[in-house]
């Protein structure tokens, strides 16, 4: 068992454990912080697959921007206490059963593949290669996404503006 395998299992356990903590903690602030840990573990997986650009973008965009936005909203609404009073245990049980069934079905269908995966090598994920692809072949979708961001920004402002 080489260092790659050890790192893979460690990061997988970290991601899955903190994902479970996200959906079980009562306090939303703890959930947000555990989700940040999950995103860091996923970034570790990207580094392990030598997708360096995506690893950095994942940390900056997800763990940095999006999670801070979540944390900001949770703190703004003063939700750092338990706001879910009592729950229907039967519905919870049904949710866990259906999610687990989906897990088993997908796993049984897909786990028999034999293909190998390139770890820690290949220069496809580097900033240089991806930048050339992005600005040669995908420059039009890149510009379109700026329009998407502009409309999302205007939409967020319009939605959260207080009506008179």
């Amino acid at each position: 068992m080489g260092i790659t395998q050890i790192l893979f299992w460690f990061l997988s356990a970290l991601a899955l454990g903190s994902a479970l903590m996200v959906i079980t903690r009562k306090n939303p602030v703890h959930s947000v912080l555990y989700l940040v840990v999950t995103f860091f573990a996923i970034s570790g997986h990207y580094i392990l697959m030598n997708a360096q650009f995506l690893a950095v973008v994942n940390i900056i965009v997800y763990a940095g921007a999006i999670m801070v936005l979540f944390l900001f909203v949770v703190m703004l609404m003063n939700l750092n206490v338990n706001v879910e009073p009592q729950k229907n245990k039967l519905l919870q049980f049904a949710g866990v059963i259906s999610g687990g069934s989906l897990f088993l079905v997908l796993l049984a269908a897909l786990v028999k593949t034999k293909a190998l995966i390139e770890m820690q090598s290949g220069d496809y994920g580097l900033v240089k290669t991806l930048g050339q692809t992005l600005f040669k072949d995908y420059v039009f979708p890149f510009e379109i996404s700026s329009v998407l961001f502009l409309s999302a920004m205007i939409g967020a402002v319009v939605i959260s503006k207080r009506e008179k």
Partner: protein
Amino acid sequence: MEIKYYIGLAIALFCTGIIGVLTRRNAIIIFMCVELMLNAVNLLLVAFSKMHALSPVGIATPSVVSDAQVFVFFIMVVAAAEVAVGLAIIVMMYRNVHSVDVNFLNRLKN
């Protein structure tokens, strides 16, 4: 490393997100579980792109692998825009019903 471990990990993360969406009632946590599912899919896309880098049949030109990772980058872009609008909707909902419990949003029911 075989691809099946990454498939298993991505499926487990995705189903964790689904269970969270189905069992929690706090709108913010439901939204966070949606983000978790998006990240599981991103991880699987990157793993498949690295699988094509080793593909023996020769269909994998370098641009195929880079294309997949640019695709993941665009998913992240769309997710960031989605979070901005979604959190604005949740703030609006909190202003109207003074709660983020999704069970209070049943005015369309009757």
